[in-house]
């Protein structure tokens, strides 16, 4: 036997793929030293403020800024006349930067001010005189679809219908033994990120502008900014500032153009920070939905058909309504094998607040409806609701209503089995801690009138951008020796919004290049687009780009090694190694003064548009699944609900960072809980009635119960590392599970979320 003497040992790097290293920004965030977009400051900086329409629909007959300009400290007051190209939009340019002759929702920006103190700017905005002719707003989405409804966007073909997404699959008129129907509604949910819309625009000497901004997609902002400002790309440079949560609400522009306009006009840095009330008007919300469903099944419980009409209120401007509608329609039958499907999804213009992206993106609304239907069907069949779901559960090979075959693991039945098998929390006996009862320390009950219920839900979400979108990310990876040590630098434009992408990019670089020290460069537009931090896509797409760039860097290093006489095939633990993992040389020695840098644009496999008549097509690159079981206590006399426990099971393909996966499941489940029992923007005649955290309630630590979580890792062969997007699925299924549990406790039909006390006691 031959032995290799003096072979240095490979010290494997830690904190690679599959580990849970600590966030690189964690210490700064706990010290209060992490610079969020609202923390920025520049010498001689001005503050911007926005005048917004108080009316949901009105003609603007006159605008007088004279008095505002007279206020000492005011440096600029700008209107639509000052915007080079006044129409913008994330997907469809239909929205003015500043209103011209009409306002279509309450809160629409009309004018902007820059002043030396935020209060001065606000007072100046109050001095602007706007002559409105108030019009009757269109506030009912279904009525807005009728031919006689006032047309809100005359330039748009199809009246007020932003998109009709039909799905036609199987037979047109199938016959079933058992039929259940239902009409379901979902209220308008707010993303309620904690860091308000904010940023700092700094005019540059070259006539351009640098914008430091909290966003989900720097390059989409840049594209819209260059158009609105009529400036070339190299003059509008974006830098990601610290992002205080996103959840879809930072996909559309808010104050970006406004701050740049004011900065370019005054030649001074301008900071805009929304307060909480303004934030409720500053971003789009989750579409409220009206959904009519009909499910048919055999006597044995096999689904025969699903028919549905899904109407999504897109509000005043299109935003992402078309894509949301596509999701609701294509995923509208749920994670089930259904031979015949007829779904019509509609996204509609109204004068309600604009709606667009929020975690779950159309799949949330549909999930509440189809899961409510599955419970109703189970009752009609006298079957256990979980057994019915498992009997019809989608699996690898299932044909979706779009004709697309699920071509990777789809362990829907297993996820349901996992949450069902969890031991149920004990029903307490004896005196109860008030904090564990519905109503809490309000002392509304000591247990009398409290009934426990258990419910289930499972959902399906697409990962990544769908329907033929050219979905890609760009990564620049550089390897060099710094202070005698190999160091990797990773540069992307991807937005870290809290999810932990900064951690993940470093993990991938460590694993791929066998180097411990990784520096994550700030995200900006000095590297190509990373696409959006949404659709559960960044681990997949930017993760894929970072891996691909690392592979090219590795190939470059191996070429260097070959030139130095080493037949190396890989990198590990800071060494170059042979095919048998024998250490050939130190990476530091192979690199010397060389810098190996590669930039890669990486795409997932293409998807295809839906057929506009049949809705058939390979629309989604990946499906993701999660299931929940909810246990609730309901005070049936007062209509108060306390969620006692949530169990969740989710397939993540590969847990790239297991701790971060849990964090996504816990946080996503909490947002689903909010939609189930708490969160709704109350809109009356187009006017928001509760734009504050006093009146719009998100779950506190007392509302959110303990969770048990099962994470499955069934690799998707098409995805980097086999991973599956994680962020959104848990937001889908927690809502219907909680609603089902409340139904179980109360015996009520409950066809609407959020479930409010009056739905329970007034029913």
């Amino acid at each position, binding site marked *: 036997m031959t032995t290799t003497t003096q072979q240095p040992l490979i010290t494997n790097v830690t904190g690679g793929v599959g580990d849970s290293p600590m966030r690189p920004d964690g210490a700064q965030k*706990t010290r*209060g030293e992490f610079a*969020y977009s609202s923390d920025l400051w520049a010498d001689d900086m001005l503050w911007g403020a926005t005048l917004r329409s108080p009316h949901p629909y009105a003609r603007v007959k006159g605008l007088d800024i004279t008095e505002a300009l007279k206020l000492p400290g005011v440096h600029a007051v700008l209107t639509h006349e000052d915007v080079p190209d006044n129409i913008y939009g994330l997907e469809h340019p239909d929205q003015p930067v500043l209103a011209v002759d009409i306002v279509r929702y309450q809160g629409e920006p009309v004018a902007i001010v820059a002043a030396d103190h935020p209060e001065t700017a606000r007072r100046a905005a109050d001095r602007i005189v706007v002559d409105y002719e108030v019009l009757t707003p269109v506030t009912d989405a279904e009525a807005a679809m009728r031919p006689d409804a006032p047309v809100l966007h005359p330039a748009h073909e199809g009246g007020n219908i932003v998109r009709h997404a039909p799905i036609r699959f199987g037979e047109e008129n199938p016959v079933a033994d058992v039929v259940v129907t239902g009409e379901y509604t979902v209220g308008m949910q707010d993303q309620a*990120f*904690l860091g308000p819309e904010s940023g700092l625009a700094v005019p540059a000497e070259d006539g351009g502008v640098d914008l430091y901004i909290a966003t989900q997609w720097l390059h989409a902002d840049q594209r819209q900014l260059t158009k609105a400002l009529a400036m070339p790309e190299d003059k509008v440079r974006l830098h990601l500032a610290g992002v205080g949560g996103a959840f879809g609400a930072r996909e559309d522009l808010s104050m970006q153009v406004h701050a740049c306009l004011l900065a370019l006009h005054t030649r001074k840095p301008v900071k805009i920070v929304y*307060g*909480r009330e303004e934030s409720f008007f500053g971003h789009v919300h989750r579409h409220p939905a009206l959904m009519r469903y009909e499910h048919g099944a055999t006597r044995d419980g096999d689904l025969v058909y699903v028919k549905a009409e899904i109407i999504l209120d897109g509000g005043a401007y299109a935003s992402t309504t078309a894509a949301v509608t596509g999701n609701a329609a294509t995923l509208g039958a749920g994670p089930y094998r259904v031979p015949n499907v007829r779904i019509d999804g509609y996204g509609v213009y109204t004068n309600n607040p604009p709606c667009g992206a929020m975690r779950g993106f159309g799949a949330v609304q549909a999930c509440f409806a189809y899961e409510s239907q599955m419970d109703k069907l189970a009752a009609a069949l006298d079957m256990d609701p979980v057994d019915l779901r498992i009997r019809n559960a989608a699996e690898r090979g299932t044909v979706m209503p779009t004709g697309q075959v699920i071509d990777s693991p789809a362990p829907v039945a297993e996820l349901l089995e996992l949450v069902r098998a969890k031991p149920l929390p004990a029903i307490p006996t004896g005196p109860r801690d008030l*904090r564990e009862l519905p109503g809490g320390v309000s002392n509304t009950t000591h247990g009398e009138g409290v009934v426990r219920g258990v419910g289930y839900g499972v959902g399906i979400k697409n990962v990544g951008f769908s329907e033929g979108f050219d979905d890609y990310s760009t990564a620049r990876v550089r390897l060099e020796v710094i202070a005698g040590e190999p160091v990797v630098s990773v540069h992307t434009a991807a937005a870290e919004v809290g999810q932990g992408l900064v951690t993940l990019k470093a993990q991938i670089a460590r694993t791929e290049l066998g180097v411990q020290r990784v520096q994550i460069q700030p995200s900006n537009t000095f590297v190509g687009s990373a696409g959006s931090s949404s659709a559960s896509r960044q681990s997949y797409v930017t993760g894929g780009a970072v891996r691909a760039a690392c592979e090219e860097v590795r190939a470059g290093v191996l070429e260097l090694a070959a030139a130095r006489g080493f037949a190396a095939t890989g990198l590990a633990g800071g060494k170059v190694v042979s095919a048998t993992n024998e250490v050939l040389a130190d990476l530091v020695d192979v690199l010397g003064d060389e810098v190996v840098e590669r930039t890669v644009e990486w795409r997932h496999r293409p998807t295809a548009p839906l057929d506009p008549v049949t809705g058939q097509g390979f629309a989604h690159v990946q499906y993701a699944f999660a299931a929940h079981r909810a246990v609730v206590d309901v005070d049936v006399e007062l209509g108060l609900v306390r969620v006692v426990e949530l169990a969740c099971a989710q397939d993540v393909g590969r847990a790239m960072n297991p701790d971060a996966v849990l964090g996504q499941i*816990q946080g996503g489940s909490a947002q689903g809980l909010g939609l189930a029992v708490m969160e709704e923007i109350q809109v009356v005649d187009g006017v928001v009635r509760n734009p504050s955290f006093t009146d719009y309630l998100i779950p*506190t630590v007392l509302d959110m119960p303990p969770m048990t979580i099962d994470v499955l890792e069934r690799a998707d062969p098409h995805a980097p590392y086999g991973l599956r997007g994680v962020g959104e699925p848990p937001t889908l299924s927690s809502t219907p599970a909680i609603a089902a549990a409340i139904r179980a406790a109360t015996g009520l039909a409950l066809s609407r979320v959020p479930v409010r006390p009056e739905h329970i006691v007034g029913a």
Partner: protein
Amino acid sequence: MRVNVEVNGEQRTADDVWPGESLLYVLRERLGLPGAKNACEQGECGSCTVYLDGTPVCACLVAAGQVEGRSVRTVEGLGSAEELDPVQDAFVRTGAVQCGFCTPGLVVAAHDLVHRKPDASDAEIREALAGNLCRCTGYEKILDAVRMAAVAVKEQRS
């Protein structure tokens, strides 16, 4: 107006303060301490929690003039330059930080709790932190962090 206030052990002065400004604004915009966060500025979210004379308050609800001659301790004043406070360290280690916007306020609120009541039960932790909203984490890992920090504080004391 001029406001004199002790912040994190140092005597500080802010000039040209408009009487309508809050302590939060003075800390963030006049004294260079943006650690306390501006999530709601309505006293609902707790992200601007600081100690005022040793008592946790929402800095957004304290008028600047009210702090004249008093003592404020912010999240920046908890750990040292070299070392995180055990509460800060626990938040990082347990993964209780995602976007982190709620973190400074939660760190101060948790710091108060674990020093006041290191043996707090889960129900007591939940009640103590019920004024601090977090939108990312679902709170599970924040509870882990507080439990870990409480252990560290007890060890420090013993």
